[in-house]
């Protein structure tokens, strides 16, 4: 390649309009069904992820309403025990695996590349593969529900109930394989996020200038990478036990029923933080914008994030406090479970301090953040209660725990998430959501949530176990249950208003402009919605709040325009190291996901699927990685 040609392909001397046209040609996808399937644009994929996850949220919410209908009166016969067990299993599995984790990862897929100032996520084809895998796993689960063969063993599927002897049919296998699908998808995203954050940050964005949200997503990704293998081992061994008669969980032949619980909760507890830490990031992004000053205690917050991540692996046993553990073990896990309240407290105090020093502007995203603080503190405190072994022996597996984890997960993650949708909707669609409907949605969701879930604490203390499909009329639970069921209608109405607002604003919202909230982070430095190449020129970062500190954001030049190219920077200082090519669109990730889905579903029925099913996967992977002869990178 001649000197002249190289020079011509660079962006150095081009005018903005000319540059945009060239970048658009290089990065943009063409219209058409197969082109859309083939896209590897992180924003498109993230949007699909988010929409799909919210569809699953709606479906899971409908299941919750069905359960509340059945529990609204004693010995009701709206839903039989078989269907009810499927419904609560579906509700839990769906909300954890098909909504909460994917939607948080999707927010990361959308926001992280924009916030660190790069043009696409690392491994974009893997990203596309991840979405398709997630979609097929979700369809598998919901299809099984439609066929009345949905899992009926609870979302943590304890053996032996889910094992070969007591879980007849394919119900538990479908659950276990759905796990494999979603964990595969989650692991793929986690790897992409880690690499994107470490190697693709804009020049000058040293580690101490990364937005807290990006830190949160980074810690979350490491949690996924460490925790998910445990559950994949668990679900695979369960399928082996059920399909080919291995003895992992058979106490008569040296297996152990508790092994499942250890494996599951070694994943299951970090899972809670996989959902919650991104929410911490969302809150930390929204809050400074609406109080008009930077976040207080950046370093403290980042350390609290990391501490939470590390500690979260040391408390899985608090889900097993009533299995009859040795005293010393229980004491250790009580102490560690209590200790995690400290980093959680640090986060709350930093936000409160930021609020104290700032001047709050009460727009909808901030309302949800405030609702989050009030609700999450309560969930955290009941968390301290269940961390105590003796106390837990009374409330474990009761509605108290149901109330607790809904306070933590809905209050701690869904509230910030909806706030985040209001906050970033203008960035994703170019249109603002309605402030009036937003206030209604917040009011209904906040009030509906507390009216629905607070009484469950009391029901639990009054002795109502969770996962019962009905209860006897002579027990004093009927009144509160009816109250809860009626309140859940308010909560559902709040979500209805929210979804109406989303659909309405998507088409008819007011145009937003690049930075409607006057926020400080890089995603607001480009147009709304961002172009396929994200940034016309890669920004150069000189502080933690680049859009607040500099009147004019400096940019780097020298990227090629005739091929997809990213700037690779060093881990700590984010000094430019190389220009690396970024993969082009491809349908192969889609076919690979299809081949993987066929293999995984087939393997529910026959172990030979692993052998024969891997052939199409290999074919698809060969297509995916077929060498194109393009140079990888240029230093």
């Amino acid at each position, binding site marked *: 390649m001649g000197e002249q040609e190289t020079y011509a392909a660079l962006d150095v001397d081009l005018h903005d309009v000319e540059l945009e046209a060239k970048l658009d040609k290089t990065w943009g996808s063409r219209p058409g069904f197969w082109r859309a399937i083939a896209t590897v644009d992180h924003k498109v994929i993230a949007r699909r992820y988010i929409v799909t996850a919210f569809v699953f949220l709606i479906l899971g919410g409908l299941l919750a309403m069905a359960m509340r209908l059945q529990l609204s009166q004693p010995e009701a016969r709206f839903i*039989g025990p078989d269907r009810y067990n499927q419904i609560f299993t579906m509700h839990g599995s769906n909300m954890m695996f098909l909504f909460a984790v994917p939607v948080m990862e999707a927010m990361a897929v959308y926001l992280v590349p924009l916030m660190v100032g790069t043009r696409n996520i690392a491994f974009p084809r893997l990203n596309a593969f991840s979405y398709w895998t997630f979609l097929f796993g979700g369809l598998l689960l919901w299809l099984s529900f439609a066929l009345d063969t949905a899992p009926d063993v609870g979302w943590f599927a304890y053996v032996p109930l889910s094992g070969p002897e007591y879980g007849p049919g394919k119900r538990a296998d479908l659950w276990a394989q759905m796990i494999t699908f979603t964990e595969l998808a989650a692991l793929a995203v986690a790897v992409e996020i880690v690499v994107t954050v470490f190697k693709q940050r804009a020049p000058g964005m040293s580690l101490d200038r990364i937005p807290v949200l990006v830190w949160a997503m980074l810690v979350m990704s490491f949690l996924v990478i460490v925790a998910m293998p445990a559950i994949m081992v668990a679900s695979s061994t369960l399928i082996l036990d059920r399909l080919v008669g291995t003895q992992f969980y058979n106490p008569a032949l040296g297996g152990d029923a508790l092994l499942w619980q250890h494996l599951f909760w070694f994943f299951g507890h970090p899972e809670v933080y996989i959902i919650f830490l991104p929410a911490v990031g969302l809150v930390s992004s929204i809050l400074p914008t609406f109080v008009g000053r930077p976040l207080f205690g950046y370093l403290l917050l980042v350390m609290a994030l990391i501490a939470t991540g590390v500690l979260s692996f040391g408390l899985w046993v608090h889900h097993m406090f009533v299995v*009859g553990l040795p005293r010393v073990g229980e004491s250790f896990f009580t102490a560690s479970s209590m200790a995690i309240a400290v980093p959680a407290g640090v986060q709350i*105090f930093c936000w409160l301090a930021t609020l104290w020093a700032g*001047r709050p502007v009460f727009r909808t995203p901030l309302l949800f953040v405030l609702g989050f603080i009030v609700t999450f*503190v309560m969930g955290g405190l009941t968390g301290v209660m269940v961390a105590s072994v003796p*106390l837990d022996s009374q409330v474990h597996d009761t509605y108290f725990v149901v109330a607790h984890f809904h306070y933590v997960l809905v209050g701690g993650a869904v509230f910030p998430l909806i706030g985040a949708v209001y906050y970033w909707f203008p960035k994703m669609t170019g249109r603002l959501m309605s402030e009036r409907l937003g206030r209604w949605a917040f009011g209904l969701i906040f009030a509906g949530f507390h009216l629905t879930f607070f009484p469950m604490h*009391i029901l639990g203390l009054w*002795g109502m*176990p969770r996962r019962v499909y009905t209860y006897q009329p002579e027990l004093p639970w009927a009144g509160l249950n009816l109250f809860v069921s009626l309140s859940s209608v308010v909560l559902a109405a709040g979500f209805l208003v929210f979804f109406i607002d989303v659909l309405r604003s998507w088409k008819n919202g007011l145009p937003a402009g690049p930075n409607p909230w006057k926020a400080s982070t890089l995603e607001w430095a480009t147009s709304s919605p961002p172009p396929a190449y994200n940034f016309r020129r890669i920004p150069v970062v000189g502080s933690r709040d680049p859009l607040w500190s500099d009147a004019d954001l400096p940019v780097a030049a020298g990227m090629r325009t005739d091929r997809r190219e990213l700037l690779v920077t060093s881990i700590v200082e984010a000094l430019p190291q190389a220009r690396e090519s970024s993969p082009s669109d491809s349908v192969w990730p889609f076919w690979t996901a299809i081949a993987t889905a066929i293999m995984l579903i087939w393997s529910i029925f026959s172990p030979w699927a692993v052998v024969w099913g891997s052939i199409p996967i290999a074919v698809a992977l060969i297509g995916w990685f077929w060498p194109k002869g393009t140079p990888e990178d240029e230093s």
Partner: protein
Amino acid sequence: MKAALVIIFIVLLAGCGGNQSALEAHGPSAVALKDLIVLFTLLCFAIWLLVTGFLLWVLARRRAEPRQDQAAEQRMTVAVRASVAATVLVVAGLTVASFHATRSLNSGADDAVLVSVKGQQWWWQFTYKDATQASIFQAANELHIPVGKDVRLELESIDVIHSLWIPSLAGKLDLIPGRKNDLTLRADRPGTYRGQCAEFCGLQHGHMAFLVIAQDEGDYRQWAAAQAAPATEPSDAEAAAGKVVFMSKPCAACHTIRGTPAIGSSGPDLTHVGGRQTIGAGLLETTRGSLAAWIADPQTLKPGNNMPLVPLTSEELRQLSAYMEGLR
């Protein structure tokens, strides 16, 4: 929100919730746990009020301009540090309180009444044992205990994981296949306390309850002696005909009635079924009518349980329920 606060206050002050409530404590373990719950709740509630109060104050104040000066940063640093220190202290204090409560539990005397509990889908089998571990008699879904005496329950499961929970007497403990757990409990005053399976165990997890009946020592001995005796012979012709029906139909293949040829073991021991307060693991109060209803169609009353619908004529049903009712 306010209504909710009022509710929790009333709950804590009055204590209510029937005979299956952690707040209605009638044994030393349950009382210690209730005290712990109250301590934790009050403290956590106070912290929540502090945080929410501070938040509301901050929001109500409405600064004219956000502060970013050095003095403000310093004040915040001090305040956050102090709050974190306070959090550490509270958490450490609660941990110590929790350890303390644990130590006050689980003290079982040697002369405790010994009962082997076998959980199964979806009922409870109680086998009373003597000091040498030999079985004295078997009962189902109803545990009688002497007041003021320790009772040691050996918890085992026949099929899946269950959890034994009698909120008014003690915290719960799991029954796990391949393992044996011990739970010691004591009732301070006579009464009927309800318990229920707390670990999801399949279709009829919601209908796996039992009653604990705490009696004075004398009453308890009398009850135990009666339980150890074989079944009473039917007193009238109808019940006698019912016994014939029981022995000639599938009933006898699954149920035991001591003193008769019925020695099935996959269903509950029915030797004294008429004397129990409930049938179907806490499903229905024991009456002749409910016995007949249960036998006539167990799959409608408790769908999916392991008792099949045995076709009987109405005459046979009447006789059988008379026999069952007479087994006291």
